[in-house]
């Protein structure tokens, strides 16, 4: 681009007024802004802090927290061991062992004999949820995932199903629920998952 190009836009530094150059009036402007915040918190209760253990933070409905394994109407895991989630997983944290479905389950060929997610390896990207063709794996709004050892952070099928039992009231399966007119926040879950799921 040539310097006399007509498309070239020349930007001048802003002209400083006397007040800008003395600097003190602008400092006063800044002090007013800070004072509004300080007085707002002190007298009008404008703080955005959530006092966590007493008040539970409510994540947005699309929050990606701990996984759950959904059950169908008869209480069986919806999973058909197709391995799509394990393939989609960028962190390779899903380990499924499939087996031939029992004869009493005519609607599917396979079911997961074991379904293990390493919650420490997972990056909570939600791609398993997107890949699943039968809405079996979903990410819930549970965020207080804690544990005392690495072993207890590896969730097996029982644990994942119990997460579903725990959260199905607060977060119905997306495909079952009627389409939402507007996003409603997930209701508060009062028990931390690590406490309720441990023996």
């Amino acid at each position, binding site marked *: 681009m040539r310097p006399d190009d007509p498309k070239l836009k020349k930007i001048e530094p802003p002209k400083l007024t006397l007040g800008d150059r003395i600097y*003190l009036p602008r*400092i006063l402007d*800044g*002090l007013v*802004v*800070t*004072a509004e*915040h*300080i007085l*707002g*918190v*002190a007298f009008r209760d*404008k*703080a*955005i*802090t959530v*006092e966590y253990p007493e008040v539970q933070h409510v994540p947005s409905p699309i929050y990606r927290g701990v996984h759950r394994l959904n059950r169908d109407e008869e209480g069986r895991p919806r999973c058909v061991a197709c391995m799509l989630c394990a393939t989609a997983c960028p962190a390779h944290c899903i380990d499924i062992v499939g087996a031939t479905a029992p004869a009493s389950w005519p609607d599917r060929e396979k079911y997961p004999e074991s379904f293990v997610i390493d919650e420490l390896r997972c990056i909570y990207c939600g791609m398993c949820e997107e890949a699943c063709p039968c809405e079996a794996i979903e990410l819930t709004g549970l965020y207080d995932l804690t544990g005392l050892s690495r072993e207890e952070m590896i969730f097996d099928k029982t644990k994942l199903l119990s997460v579903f039992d725990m959260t199905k009231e607060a977060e119905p399966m997306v495909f079952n629920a009627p389409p939402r007119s507007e996003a409603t926040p997930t209701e508060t879950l009062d028990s931390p998952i690590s406490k309720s799921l441990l023996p």
Partner: protein
Amino acid sequence: MTIWFLIGIVVKILIVVGVTQGAVAYLILVERKVAAYSQDRIGPNRCGREFGIPAALLLPLADGAKMLLKEDVIPKYVTKPIYLMAPWIAIVTAMIGFAAAPFGPLGPDQWIDFQIAPNIDIGVLYIMAIGSLAVYAVILGGWASNNKYAFIGGLRSSAQLISYEIPLGLSILGMVLVAGSLDLNRIILWQDSHGWGCLYQPLAFVLFFTSAFAETNRLPFDLPESEQELVAGFHTEYSAMKFGMFFLGEYLHIITACFVTVALFFGGWNLPWILTSAHTGIVFTALKVLVFAGKVALAILFIMWVRWTLPRFRYDQLMDLAWKSMIPLALINLAATAAIVQLVRTYWS
């Protein structure tokens, strides 16, 4: 000079040391609260809740215990004697400045002199001299650490403190000329009969207070410890109570600076028409001490308020501000004050 006079001074020293140390502990809590409020947070409110004590009033105790119980790491590569000396210099220089600071009325008609060294003729000069000694703590601490960040922090602070000492001193001189004394008590008494100093010397007040920010290493002039560039500046290699002593020294400095500001420009214990030198007696004396402390507290709150308002200066801007604006302004102010004082003394009285 009787033995009772000496005992009185020792008692006063103990009271001042105790009160200021306690005040520093709670100032840190207040600072954290102001920081939180200006960022729309709540700030510390848990410590002491189990015992029914509100607003984290036990937090200073927990902070102090943490400082004392932490592991005190002394790296192998430091120059040990100087490294160990620096935090002490920080605290001692900050403490002995209080000797000449009046914290209430004094004089022959008072039942007690509210000053550790009463009627010292060169009070302002003494506080200024002691205040400049504080730079040794920062420089020696940064230099003895043998760490590039600490070293740069120490260097910056030496240049900064020496530069801002000049407008600080020049702006005080204007007030000294007007009041005709270097004794802080007499300056307060002059303001008692003529009105507050900030009315006579507004420019000097702005210059003095700005320089006081730089002298106490507060934002927007906290170049010696600018975290984003220098890890923690001069106290990078200090841990546990040695770091705590630097911290304590910094806050004590703020208290001293605010004491001098209030004494020079806001009439000390004086409230126009409400509390003047005409009011004597124990009740009014106690009120005067409280008013003085309240004014100092307001000044400290203002310093914290500014801290959370202004971003840090760039180093060349810092030097520009001192040498190209503040020192010329202070000189003009001093010359104008001298001329006017001379004119008034010649033709008026």
